[in-house]
C-alpha cells in the first residue's frame, strides 16, 4: 500500500525563523532555507505533528487526511 503523504504548509508571513521545528523534528523533514523553515524531505514525515505543536508562531500546518 502506498504511504499517504501529508501536506506541510509553512506560512512565511508568520515564520520568525526560530529553528524549533527544524531541530525537534524526529525525522529531519524540515530545514532552514534562508530566514524561513521549509520542507526538505516530505517522504520521511511520520505525521507526529511535533512541528505544528511546537511552532510558537502558528506558522506550520501539517495537513493529513
Amino acid at each position, binding site marked *: 500500500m502506498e504511504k499517504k503523504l501529508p501536506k506541510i*504548509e509553512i506560512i512565511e*508571513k*508568520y515564520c*520568525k*525563523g*526560530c*529553528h*524549533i521545528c527544524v*531541530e*525537534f523534528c524526529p525525522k529531519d523533514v524540515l530545514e532552514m532555507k534562508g530566514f524561513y523553515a521549509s520542507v526538505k524531505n516530505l517522504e520521511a514525515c511520520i505525521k507526529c505533528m*511535533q512541528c*505544528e*505543536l*511546537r*511552532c*510558537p*508562531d*502558528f506558522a506550520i*500546518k*501539517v*495537513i*493529513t*487526511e
Partner: protein
Amino acid sequence: MAFDYDKYLRPGKLPHIWCPGCGHGIVMKGLIRAMDTLNLKKEETAVVSGIGCASRLPGYIDCCTLHTAHGRAAAFATGVKMAKPEMNVILVGGDGDGTAIGGNHFIHACRRNINMTYIIMNNYIYGMTGGQFSPCTPTGAKASTTPYGNPDPGFDIAKLAIGAGATFVARGTAFHANQIDKLIAEAIQHKGFSVVEILDDCPTTYGRRNKYKSVIEMMNRLKDVAVPVKAAEKMTAEQLQGKVLTGVLYKDETKPEYTAEYAKVIERATAAK
C-alpha cells in the same frame, strides 16, 4: 488533520509580537486547544491579563478579554467572576506580573479559592521592560539589574500557590507542548482556584545574558529539567537534584468555592432584612 487555531483567534492579529523562539506562542496554542476540547463558548469565557509579554495574549484570542493594570489581573478577574459566576474566567500572565507586582493579588485569589484558572508563564525574567530580575530568577542568574548574578533565591510558584490555598496546581513546560492543553483543560474543569505554571524560555532578555547560545539550548534545558510526577516517585532525592516536577502537583476538591460561599452570604443577608 491540522488543528484549526483560527477559530479562536482574532482575524488579522498574527504575526504576534513575541520574539522568535519565545514559548508564549506555544502556551497560547495550548490554551486554544484546551478551550476547544472543553467547547468553551466565546461569550462565556473571559481571558484576563495584567501587563507584560505574556499578558499580551488576550489581544489575540477571540473571546471576552480584559487587559488590565500591572499585576492586577487577579483583582479584575475576581470582579468578573463575582458579577458573573457562570463565566469561565482564565487569567494569563508572566512570573513578574503574577508573583512580584501582583504577588499579593495572586496569594489572596489562591486563599479565597475562587473558581478561576491562572496560567503563569514563568520565563524567569521581566522580558518586556528590558530584562530586570523577577522573583523567579534563579540564584546566580544574570539580568539587566543583576549583572554580577542574582543573590536572591527564586520563588517556586507551584509551592507558593499550594501554600496560599489554591486547590489545583499543575506545572508544564513550553517544550512539552502536548501536555499543556491537557493541564489547562483539567484546571478549567476544576471547581476552585487553579494554577498552571508553564516553564518558558525568554531567548532575548534571559537567554543571551545567561550563556544560552540559542532557543534550542533553552528548549533542551526545559526538556532536561522536567520530570513527570509519576516518574519522580521512583527516583531518589539525589537524582531529583536540580529537577522540576511536572504534571498535576496538587488537587483538593473538598475546599468550598468562593462564589458559592458568597451566594450563601447574600441569601443570609436578604433573609435577615
